[in-house]
Structures are given as C-alpha cells and as structure tokens.
C-alpha cells in the first residue's frame, strides 16, 4: 500500500466512541445536578431539573450511566481495554519527556515532542487521573446513596472524599476537554473520538512511534 499524506490512522472503535460520549454526557449531568444539590447558593439550578427531588433522581440515574457505561464498553471491547492497560503500565523515557514539556504544550510554547506510542505520556497520566477519579467517585457516590450497607466509619469518610474528588475530576476533565477539543495544537484529536481516525500529520506529531507501527502493519511504505 502506498504511503500518502492523507492517510488516516484508526484510533477508536465505535463502542469506545459511544461509551466516551455517553460517559461525557453523564458526567456533565452529574456535575450540574451535583453542584445544585451540594452548594446552597446554587439551589436555583435545581429548577432546571424540576426541583431538588428530581435533581437527586437524575443525579442517581446519571451515576448509573456514568458507572456502568465504561463497564459495558470494556465488555464490548476487552481487547481495547487491555491495550490501554498494557500502555499505561509500560512507561518509556519518552513518556516522561512528554510530561516534562506538558506546560509548554498547554500554554502553546515551542517545545520538542519525543516520539510517543499509542498513548503519549500525557494521555497515560490522564488515564490514571480519570480512572482513579472515576472509581473513587463511583464508590463514594454509591456509599452516599446506600450508606446503610457499609460500616458507618467508612461511610463517613466517603462524604469528604466524594466532595473532594468531584472538583478534582472536573479539573482533570476540563484540561482533557480543552486539550482534546479546543487547543490549536492538539484539538484535532477530536477527530479520533468523533470519527475514529487521526490524520497523518497529527499521528506522526503526537504518536510518532505508534504511527510508524501502524504504517508498517498496513504496509504503507514511503515513496
């Protein structure tokens, strides 16, 4: 197969993309209902959801989608999940080099990008942040919902943890969303989660090592 500048690099399957957006929507629903229930001065926001009682119900429904969505995604594509697990448990020198230059990237300053694999260093870190945030918020959230089924001493810790993890995860999501959608340097990665593929320019820039692997797998040789 001939090499072309217009080549696309297959990134995410349909299941991953559907789960990502379901998860994203449920996150925002959780965020707004949670804020309206948690902060007294934001109580008027409850009206958007039909009052505090409905906001609470919607928060719980969204929590189920938030929690079970990714689990369904793993069941639909276990291979993809284990690929991510393998990636985040294998760190290379280049991954750390990527993270070191992260602030330069975030604020649009010139910097060198070490050749990255399927997940670059920043994405690996992001998987940890979002993964642990997801697990922590889900566990503490379900305890807040059903405190009667756990020891009271454990339930009491879940209140401060839930209210601390929520803004921390939101901070991570804000950064992730900005970099993946609006940042002029990396916003093109939106194409991967929306359409499933990346352009050659983006793949070679952000995932040079992976791009080479894909080219070689697909037999795309340079002219």
């Amino acid at each position, binding site marked *: 197969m001939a090499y072309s500048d217009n080549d696309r690099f297959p990134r995410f399957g349909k299941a991953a993309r559907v789960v990502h957006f379901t998860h994203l929507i449920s996150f925002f629903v959780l965020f707004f209902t949670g804020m309206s229930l948690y902060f007294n001065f934001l109580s008027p926001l409850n009206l958007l959801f039909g009052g505090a009682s409905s906001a609470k119900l919607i928060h719980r429904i969204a929590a189920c989608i938030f929690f079970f969505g990714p689990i369904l995604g793993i069941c639909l594509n276990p291979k993809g999940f284990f690929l991510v697990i393998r990636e985040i448990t294998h760190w290379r020198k280049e991954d750390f080099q990527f993270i070191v230059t992260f602030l330069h990237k975030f604020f649009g300053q010139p910097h060198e990008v070490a050749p990255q694999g399927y997940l670059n260093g920043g994405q690996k870190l992001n998987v940890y942040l979002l993964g642990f945030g997801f697990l922590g918020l889900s566990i503490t959230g379900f305890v807040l919902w059903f405190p009667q089924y756990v020891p009271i001493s454990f339930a*009491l810790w879940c*209140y401060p943890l839930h209210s601390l993890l929520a803004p921390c995860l939101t901070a991570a999501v804000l950064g992730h969303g900005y970099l993946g959608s609006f940042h002029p340097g990396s916003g093109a990665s939106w194409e991967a989660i929306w359409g499933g593929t990346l352009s050659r*320019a983006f793949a070679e*820039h952000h995932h040079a090592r992976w791009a080479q692997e894909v080219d070689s797998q697909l037999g795309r040789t340079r002219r």
Partner: protein
Amino acid sequence: MAQVAKLIDVTKCTACRGCQVACKQWNELPVEAPPKEMAFTGTLQSHPDLAPNTFTIIQFFEEKDDTNTVKYRFRKTGCMHCTDAACILVCEKKALTKLENGIVYRDKDKCIGCGYCAQNCPFQVPKVNPKTEKATKCTLCGDRIANKMKPACVTTCITGALDFGPRDEMLKKAKKRVETLQKQGVANANIYGEKELGGTNVIYVLADKPEAYGLPADPQIPLTATLWQQYGKPIGAAVFCASFATTLFAFFLNRKKDLAPKLHHHEGGKSHGV
C-alpha cells in the same frame, strides 16, 4: 432569649411510654409500618429505633444482676439539641439551624433529604423519610414553647422524669438530683449534656455511666465532618476555580496561534511544535 432545656431523669422513668404517645399526637405522626423483623426479639422496647415518624422512644437496656434477676434501664431517646451540632455543620442546604433558645431547628422546606445529618449525628438521631425525602427529628416542640407551653412529652409525663425550663435552672435541678442519688447510694449517678458537644439542650440525669444507656461517653463531631467542611470543601472549590481559570487563560492565550501539527517527513525522530 434564654436557653431552654429538657431534663430527662432516667431514675424516675417507668417506661410507661406516655411521652411517645404524646409526641405522636402533638406532631400528628402516623404509626410506622411494622418492619418485617418486628417479631418479638426478646425485648419489651416498642420500636427498634427512632424512625421518620417516631421522634422519641424509650430504649430498654436489660441485664441480669448477680441474683439472676433482670434489671431494666430506660432512656428516653431523641434529639439532644447540641450546641456543637454535627447535623448543622454538614447540612449543605442550611435546613438545620441553632435557634437562640437552643433548639436545633429543621426547616422542612429547605431539607432535600440527603441524609448527611443522619449519618453524621453522634447519636444517630435524624432519620430520612424515603417517601417525603425529608429528614426528621424531635423539634423540642418549638411551636409549643413559642406559645409558652411545655413540650408535649413533658406535659404528659406522670412520674416527673421529664422537666422543661431555662437551661441553667434545669442544670441546677439535675445537679441537686445527682447529689440526692449519690447520697442514696447510686454512686455512678451523673449528668449528661452539661458540657458534651458544647452543652446540649436535652440534659440527662443518669444512674450509671453513659455507655450503660447507649450513649457515647465522649460524643464528638466526626473528624470526617470537620475535615470535609473546613478543608475538603474549600480545597475542592479552589481546585475547580484554579483549573477553570487556567484552562480559560490557556484558551485565550492560544486561540490565534498556528499550532496545528504539520507533516515533516522525518523518520520518527523528535518533532517540534506543540
């Protein structure tokens, strides 16, 4: 307004449970649907615990003495109306407030039934009604007090185990009663609620140590509640605001920059850019 208090002298209580009935009657509380496990469990206590429609119960503490005779201890259970109230600290909707007269008042319109108060109360008093989605507890009959009446339970108590009045007066009575009891040989007689949690507006005269009546010896606001409200909440808000401001700053800083990746036709070496 002077602080008021309800004095509960457990040594005079005969567990007639008239207070339970009076409470139900005044507050128009329906009977609780009997739970499945309501079968006789070996105790004469009427309800297993406080419930959304049961603001007070007489708890039975039964044990056998040296002669194998069953001894009963009774304690009227309900909200302690604490000064350092954990329920007030954790109530996000400010539905619970401490009134000038000492009552921990619950505004039912503000309550969203989150249950934070129920979990964090050192006495496990508030209960959430799943039907109305509101937390409930003893009101100390604030409506009656406002109309110069005593709480319903106090009015109905036939043995004088319950009393109500200005807090300092109730404390004096309690101290006098403890002295009397000690003179009569009840060596462990003590007052509970004088200093606990900043001083509660329900005061007990106990014949034995608090644990014998199911009360914590040294009740505290849970450490987790303090960490949560004093540190977790402001830190969380700061993290969110800082991340939002940083992202917004980066957005405006970068929005007109031409940072899009370009093809360099290199062989996997380091690429430049962002």
